[in-house]
């Protein structure tokens, strides 16, 4: 089974707005990442852009549509699309989310939460087994940002994810902004979450920005990916790489896309910290 492991160093999520900045390969980045579903056409400029960028950078594919946490198994047709795009682009990694997004054949275009129970654990593992068997590659599973939890949950999120990784052999994608958002929304300490998280299984870290909505009676954190990484999330990043050493790290930015230099500044900051803990890191 092919491993999913982006190269050590910092990468950025690629948006077409930044193609001119990246197409010459002059910018030092370890990898770029795209949402797999945005490149599931059969040709045209998007595919050509990725082909060009692959000449310079490792490519990581990040799926948003397999609905791993759903009651129904992943849509076979969509799984074949994912397989085709993995075969087409031979990414260094394929990752997906601990969430569901499809219900009774309708795709809801959001990453929705699931209860953590023995039943849902079994089905999530079954779905990951199916995906990994079909793709013939290990996938990375990302921890979610959530706004509610379920009274029927009998597992903590960390233990649930740990069990999934043990049972399926999948790797993990640790999204530190998601940890921070969930911690703020559910009043737990992000550092406690990380103490128990199976960091040895983490192959990639995501860093992103979030919005804060302040109400009279509460503060709500929203996972927006529309701004620079917050200082609280940088602190979590420092904690993780100080504990387990450098891990491939992606700056995600999906809305209100900034000038490339703004995105790159966050990537360079991440890389500087990775380099610090690696002693002698390769580019960027």
């Amino acid at each position, binding site marked *: 089974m092919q491993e999913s492991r982006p190269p050590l160093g910092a990468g950025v999520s690629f948006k077409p707005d930044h193609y001119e900045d990246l197409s010459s390969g002059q910018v030092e980045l370890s990898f770029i990442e795209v949402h797999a*579903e945005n490149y599931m*056409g059969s040709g045209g400029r998007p595919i050509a852009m990725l082909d060009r960028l692959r000449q310079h950078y490792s490519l990581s594919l990040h799926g948003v549509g397999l609905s791993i946490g759903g009651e129904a198994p992943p849509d076979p047709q969509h799984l074949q*699309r994912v397989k085709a795009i993995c075969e087409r682009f031979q990414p260094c990694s394929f990752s997906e989310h601990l969430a569901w997004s499809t*219900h009774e054949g309708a795709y809801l275009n*959001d990453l929705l939460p699931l209860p953590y129970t023995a039943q849902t654990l079994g089905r999530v593992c079954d779905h990951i087994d199916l995906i990994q068997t079909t793709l013939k590659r290990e996938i990375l599973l990302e921890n979610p940002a959530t*706004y*509610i*939890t379920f009274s029927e949950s009998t597992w903590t999120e960390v233990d649930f994810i740990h069990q999934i990784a043990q049972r399926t052999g999948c790797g993990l994608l640790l999204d530190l902004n998601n940890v921070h958002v969930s911690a703020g*929304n559910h009043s737990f300490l992000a550092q406690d979450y990380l103490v128990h998280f199976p960091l040895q299984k983490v192959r990639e870290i995501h860093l992103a920005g979030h919005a804060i909505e302040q109400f009279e009676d509460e503060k709500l954190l929203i996972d927006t990916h529309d701004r620079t990484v917050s200082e609280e999330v940088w602190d979590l990043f420092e904690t993780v790489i100080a504990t387990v050493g450098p891990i491939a790290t992606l700056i995600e930015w999906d809305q209100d896309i900034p000038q490339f230099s703004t995105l790159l500044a966050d990537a360079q900051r991440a890389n500087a910290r990775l380099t610090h803990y690696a002693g002698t890191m390769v580019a960027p």
Partner: protein
Amino acid sequence: MIEDVFARHLRSGAEPPEGLIASGRPDRRFAVYRNNVVHSLTTALATRFPATQRLLGIECFQACAQLFVESYKPISPVMMFYGDDFPAYLTTLPSLTNWPFLADVARIEVARTRAYHTIDRAPLRLKVGDADEIETYLNRVFNPHPAASVFHSPYPAGTIWAASGTAEALPPEAWRDETIAVTRAAYEVQVSLVPRGTAICIDAIGKGVVLGEAIAIACHADEEYDPALILATLLRCNLLVDPQQESDHESS
């Protein structure tokens, strides 16, 4: 199952389902998911239908998009193709009865997205001076280019689409029907006004009719049309591919 309940409450706009825990107000937390679903789907439509949105204005477009989203959820996570049914849906909205051309503008946008993402194929080219070979070509079967869509509108939909992207969009000078070809040259999607017979011709070519006969069918349907003009349009607008070259491409 909580998932069934969750999905039902997302759709209905009702209070949050039982069994949710939130540090703050459950209704506010659940609203984040509901807003995400609606916002992400309407944003996908706005991305795919920019001209339609410019013509309607953002507020009106959002209202139409929200109504569509309630009834037509995507059946696939490949969002760039979400909204194929949106043009037809627009024709059902009573508030848009005075905008009968709008659905055809939206159809152009559907075709543009399809063309943008479709498979790369070199269009058929005839070299200048190939007059002796034209007879041969006319007896051959070609395929419509996979990026090509040609359709007729009883309104000046192509002109309106083009004007919507300009700073000061003015109503068309001539309010007449138009036949519109959406095609691709390399990676650039092109929208052209073409002779009406082009749509009939492409339809015949798609059914396997040889080129010369397809052109004759188009001309027969409307005697005004000039066979040379239709042939020139097919070539100029990249509407054909050579099946022989397609099979070479696939085997290479």
